[in-house]
């Protein structure tokens, strides 16, 4: 997806040279980013990578040290949070404990001066969207984690913001609920047509949900692209290892194994194993076959994760799916040949 030019009406958020320093720490260090209108955009990175600070700068909770924030082409860098057309779903939900669920959802309308009946009606509608209309009179303290999450969502969308910011909103939920909420979030975003900016450290979540992903490290964006681009064509070792699992061949191993003097990454699921007596090692027709010894085989339910020490040096992680009743025969100590297509190798810089 091409970058939209700054200030063009189709850019919901435009960041230029955005930096935030806390004392000597550069939490955000010169971020340039354009997020398109209606996009589901994820900021992915480990804790401390600056993704949450970028979100807080967009929301207006932090004042930028340098750079600008534009919303729909308008410079809002120095505007207060209440003066920006974005709302946030907080990691801890931040539901007002002294108000009922309905009053929480109606809050944004109340402070905008919407009349009592009108705001009750709209809040109930928003609660209906997240299937919680029946809990309108409860206090937040009486809700489960998943329900609180939905109330927070309803409270944020009821004011019809142009952009919804989500700060690791699924982090506190258990796996089943997470997966269900992922589907609902995606659906909600499609129905509302609002731009979603989603902060997460969970690479799988980012890959599943997003139109585009920005991978953060040390306050900078290290790679920006569609989930497929990020996963299949990582440009750095950092991205290759952070997003999914990768086998990294350093320059020395690459030279021995492939005859190429550069660092390479290879996804575990792109490798297949055969018995040492079944195929001959060597590279033919664009397929690399490297002999080695199985050092570990771990049963995963959906398949096996097998660790192989290559005769040429270095080790591999291989993911074998259990398909068609095939059982992984590889046992520890067994000699095998690992093979993969040259096309599946990613050259890193």
């Amino acid at each position: 997806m091409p970058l939209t030019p700054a200030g063009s009406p189709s850019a919901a958020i435009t960041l230029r040279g955005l930096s935030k320093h806390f004392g000597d720490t550069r939490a955000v260090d010169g971020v340039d980013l354009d997020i398109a209108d209606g996009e589901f955009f994820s900021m992915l990175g480990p804790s401390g990578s600056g993704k949450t600070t970028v979100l807080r700068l967009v929301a207006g909770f932090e004042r930028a040290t340098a750079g600008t924030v534009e919303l729909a082409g308008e410079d809002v860098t120095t505007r207060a949070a209440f003066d920006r057309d974005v709302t946030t779903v907080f990691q801890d939900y931040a539901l007002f404990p002294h108000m009922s669920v309905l009053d929480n959802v109606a809050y944004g309308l109340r402070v905008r001066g919407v009349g009592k009946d009108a705001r009750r009606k709209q809040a109930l509608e928003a609660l209906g969207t997240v299937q919680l209309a029946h809990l309108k009179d409860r206090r937040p303290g009486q809700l489960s984690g998943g329900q609180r999450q939905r109330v927070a969502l309803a409270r944020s969308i009821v004011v019809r913001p142009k952009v919804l910011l989500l700060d690791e909103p699924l982090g506190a939920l258990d796996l089943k609920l997470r997966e269900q909420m992922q589907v609902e979030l995606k659906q909600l975003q499609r129905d509302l047509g609002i731009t979603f900016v989603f902060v997460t450290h969970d690479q799988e979540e980012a890959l599943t949900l997003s139109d585009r992903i920005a991978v953060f490290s040390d306050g900078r964006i290290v790679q920006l692209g569609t989930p497929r681009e990020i996963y299949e064509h990582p440009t750095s070792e950092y991205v290759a290892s952070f997003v999914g699992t990768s086998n990294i061949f350093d320059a020395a191993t690459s030279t021995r194994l492939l005859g190429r003097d550069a660092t390479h990454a290879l996804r575990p699921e792109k490798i297949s194993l055969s018995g040492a007596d079944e195929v001959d090692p060597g590279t033919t027709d664009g397929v690399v076959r490297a002999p080695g010894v199985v050092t570990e085989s771990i049963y995963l339910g959906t398949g096996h994760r097998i660790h192989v020490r290559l005769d040429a040096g270095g080790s591999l992680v291989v993911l074998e799916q259990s398909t068609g009743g095939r059982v992984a025969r590889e046992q520890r100590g067994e000699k095998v040949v690992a093979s993969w297509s040259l096309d599946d190798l990613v050259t890193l810089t």
Partner: protein
Amino acid sequence: MILSSTVRRVLVALTGLVLLVMYLPLVVVVINSFNPSRTLTWPPTGVTLEWWRRAWESEGARDAVVSSVEVAVASTVIALVLGTLMSLALQRYRFFGKSSVNLLVILPIALPGIVTGIALNNAFRGILGIQLGILTVIVAHATFCIVTVFNNVQARLRRMGGSFEEASADLGAGVWTTFRLVTFPQLRSALLAGGLLAFALSFDEIIVTTFTAGAGTTTLPIWILNNLFRPNQAPVVNVVAVVLILVSILPIWLAQKLSGDTEALR
């Protein structure tokens, strides 16, 4: 933890002894306020309301009660406003000299009353040239009353975290609306607890008061001190002491109950 029965008996006895030493004298004061003997002979030979009637009719005692209430209410109000503003500033914003300000606010409660008293006395009369009176007492009491409000509000704000206020701003509420609809409702019980403590502290304060009251102003504790050793007044002093006990203990008990209740709610 399981204690052996001997240890438990010893601990029970010790606890009883400590409580006895603390509360028996108070009980004696209460009983003596109904003791018909002018010299408070023990044990009392009957029950009388004579001293209560005399205390009620004593203009000095009544004026002292009024002064004490005025001082306590005024300094509590000052403490509530300033203490809340101060804890909001220190808990929600970053600024230069923040930790020093934090320490300076709490210090007055640790400072010996006599030092505060002398210092304020010098400042009011010597430097500012203000006549001592009820206003100077109010200001003096407010210096330490602020601390109880500050501590209560500070603790509540810390536990609240900042995300409610951020959520409110995020949904479009300005600073004042956020305080009115989100922050204040959650501070209410902390303010009540802090205010009641401040009231109780001010109501029975004597040292700082002595140095800042001047000749014309008599609060209840000062009236007691002045009358304790006068012949004929001892029984009336007992009655006033009982009133003082009630007025001081009630707010503390309420404050504790309130902060305990909100604890349980969370």
